[in-house]
């Protein structure tokens, strides 16, 4: 990931001819039922979706709009979900372009963005000041976890601090397959949110620290539970020119372990009707759609039904791109919308493979008092292995 060339970025932004497909395209044959979750769930002005955001970006870059927080609001009211990039008929990546604009224009004040970056720089997590205690979840396990092994389980900040059951269940799954794995004493933050919110320089410095820490463990394989960690460690770090051992998501790994017979899921309970929500970082960005579904289908008595939008055209949960911090209300409304999609097909559970999605979907489900429960793939898998 070299420095952003402003001329190239502007040329990219000018690829937007303002056709508007990125707003709310309903293209049944291709699986689109709407595109922009922000436009759909906020006040619906043009600034709510990518066409307007690119106009704002160009105006800020060209000095037509003054570089103020209010004028930059549209740039940050976006999850960078990439659904617009999927349908855009032009030859550029709109969501990537906006991510870069955030970085180029990061002199525009943004307290939320800056405080998250400060926390990560100082405390290796975006949530709390002070020691992150990201290893505390291992105390709930019935087995001990070393700090050095060929396989490193990188729990991530959200699983490690907010949804420890994702971390504990991931660990149980690995243990059940006989995989010896380590967890770092002091796990750093992958820095995904810094990249998405325009703090590339901070992200680059953080990335070097992360790589050094991982390499120090001697691990030959890194397993993650978070879609954001996967994309960042595997894709973004490579663009920084940083080398890591193999990075794989727990659902990919588990799917292979099931195929190899090292994991044998049993019945969980009475039959469950579940739907799978594709996290943007795992699906659209990294192309992982089948593994989580294979895992779910391997668990007896789980009926998997698909929401109207799924796989490459899945509507975003609303958490990503910094939106959950920047505009928690918008993030919650988007999540509630996604929960309604699950309700519509009669699913009792919405299952996903990203703790950050889960956190936000839970908030959305509560907001509308939905009966749809939010769980991780590893929660169900771990249950089926007991």
């Amino acid at each position: 990931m070299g420095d952003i060339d402003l001329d190239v970025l502007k040329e990219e932004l000018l690829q937007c001819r303002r056709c508007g497909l990125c707003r709310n395209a309903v293209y049944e044959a291709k699986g689109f039922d709407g595109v922009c979750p922000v436009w759909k769930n906020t006040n619906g002005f043009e600034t709510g979706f990518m066409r307007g955001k690119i106009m704002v970006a160009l105006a800020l870059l060209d000095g037509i709009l003054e570089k103020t927080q209010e004028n930059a609001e549209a740039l940050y009211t976006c999850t960078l979900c990439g659904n617009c990039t999927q349908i855009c008929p032009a030859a550029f990546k709109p969501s990537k372009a906006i991510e870069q604009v955030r970085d180029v224009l990061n002199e525009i004040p943004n307290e939320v963005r800056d405080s998250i970056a400060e926390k990560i720089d100082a405390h290796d997590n975006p949530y709390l000041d002070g020691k992150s205690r990201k290893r505390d979840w291992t105390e709930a396990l019935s087995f001990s976890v070393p700090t050095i092994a060929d396989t490193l389980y990188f729990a991530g900040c959200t699983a490690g601090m907010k949804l420890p059951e994702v971390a504990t269940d991931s660990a149980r799954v690995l243990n059940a397959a006989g995989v010896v794995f380590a967890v770092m004493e002091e796990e750093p933050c992958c820095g995904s949110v810094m990249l998405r919110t325009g703090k590339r320089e901070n992200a680059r410095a953080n990335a070097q620290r992360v790589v050094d820490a991982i390499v120090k463990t001697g691990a030959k394989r890194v397993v993650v539970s978070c879609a954001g960690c996967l994309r960042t460690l595997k894709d973004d770090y490579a663009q920084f020119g940083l080398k890591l051992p193999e990075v794989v998501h727990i659902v990919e790994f588990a799917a292979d372990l099931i195929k190899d017979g090292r994991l044998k899921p049993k019945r969980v309970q009475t039959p469950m009707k579940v739907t799978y929500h594709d996290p943007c970082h795992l699906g659209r960005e990294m192309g992982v759609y089948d593994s989580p579904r294979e895992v779910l289908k391997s668990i007896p008595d789980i009926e998997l039904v698909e929401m109207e939008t799924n796989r490459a055209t899945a509507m975003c949960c609303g958490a990503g791109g910094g939106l959950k911090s920047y505009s928690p209300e918008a993030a919650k409304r988007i999540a509630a919308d996604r929960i309604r999609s699950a309700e519509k097909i009669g699913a009792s559970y919405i299952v996903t493979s990203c703790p950050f999605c889960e956190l936000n979907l839970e908030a959305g489900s509560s907001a509308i008092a939905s009966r749809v429960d939010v769980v991780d793939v590893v929660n169900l898998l771990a249950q089926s292995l007991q």
Partner: protein
Amino acid sequence: MCTLDAGVVRQLARIVGDENISTRKDVLLTYSASASTGYDSSMPEAVVRPATTEEVSKILKIANKHRIIVTPRSGGSSLQGEVIPRSGGLVVELMRMNQISLYQDLRSVTVGAGVTFGMLDKFLNPFDLWVPVYPESSLVCTVAGNVAVNGAGPGSSAYGCIAEMVLGVEVVLPTGEVIQTGTEANPKAPGPFLRYAFGPDMTGLFIGSLGSLGVITKVSLKTFKRIRNFDYNTYGFETAEQAEQFLLKLRENDVHTLFASIYEGRILQFFMDMLGEEYGIPKHDWPPFTVSATIGRVRQDQLASDAKLAREICEALGGHVIDIAELPVGEWDDRMRTFARSSYAHGWHWRILYHHQTPTNWHKSVEEIWAVMDKYRLLGHTAGFLTDHASYNFYPHLYFDPADKPEEERVRAAHEELSQRLFQTGAVPFKLAPYWVNGVPEMETYLALVARMKKTLDPNGIMNPGVLGGI
């Protein structure tokens, strides 16, 4: 005209709610332009997003009272500057009006002004119905907006422009009255089933009016049983005349051609080099003129008969059946996106000059477009499709690099000259932009009539002034 001051903004906010009106600079900027590249943008003073016809009516009454210029807008996908607001004016954006009501026994459907063709298509599909005209911007443009410009697209080769599908409209006049045309002018009617009710074709008055005679808040359309049997083929010809006659004969002989286009060999070759692989179109040495055609019928026996006849007509004219189906398959199956793709896959911005030409004059339009492109040293294309009874809807593009201002200026000049040249060939504008009729004495009486109607309906001249032939 008056400025939209804070007092008026407060009145509008009381109608739609604070969250549905904005005077923020960043928001206004995003309404200062549309999909029309190569047009100057212009900042409105406010944008308002009503949810109901009643709200639109209240808004227009206020605008009319204070003489505030109004630009109605829905999808924002129009390409000839139709929804670029006036400085200091009010944009009324209609995307919240997204209701759909189906009248199966009346074979009709009514949609709110915020319903796109993609939304409507999905709604009708489970009923085995469709409205068989798909603008090339179907995923963005609304039915109401398309009716305001009288659009066309795939499907039009058999069914005509969108106008042919319209049974009635609900319109809010510039003075705020709500008018229903067609059968629904009778409040006791079961719904929309006939356009020509209660005297002259009032529905037609608003079709193609470009938002200058009122705000269309609902459109009622005919629905048809969805066609699911298709024949796709390409037909090669050595002369333009053969290709033109082929289109005419398809229509004359009732070959139900949903979409047919004539491509010049060199342009087709160029686009195939760019996008052929993406659409799985085999490499081919395309003849001087290719007709790409999709035939569709409700019944398989009808389709077989039509497909056979099309081949016979082609060969009788001296052409040959190419039998490459992938080109029309891509045009038809991906009709809601493919034209956007081929218009935006390359990096050029462009101005479009929609016009209708009769098929046997197809070559005249092509000659003029090439002449203008060569005179002004511009790139572009000569695309179009068969439409309606005996028309061909051209949508040529004149390309420019957005970073090259002199080139953009040449495109604007070329655009205007092209419209004048095309007028001389007997072509007619798809949308009545001013440059088509500037300084054309033969049009004066016609335009005077349009001006009188405009004055009657919009006495204070608030509705998108100037968009309709400069009136």
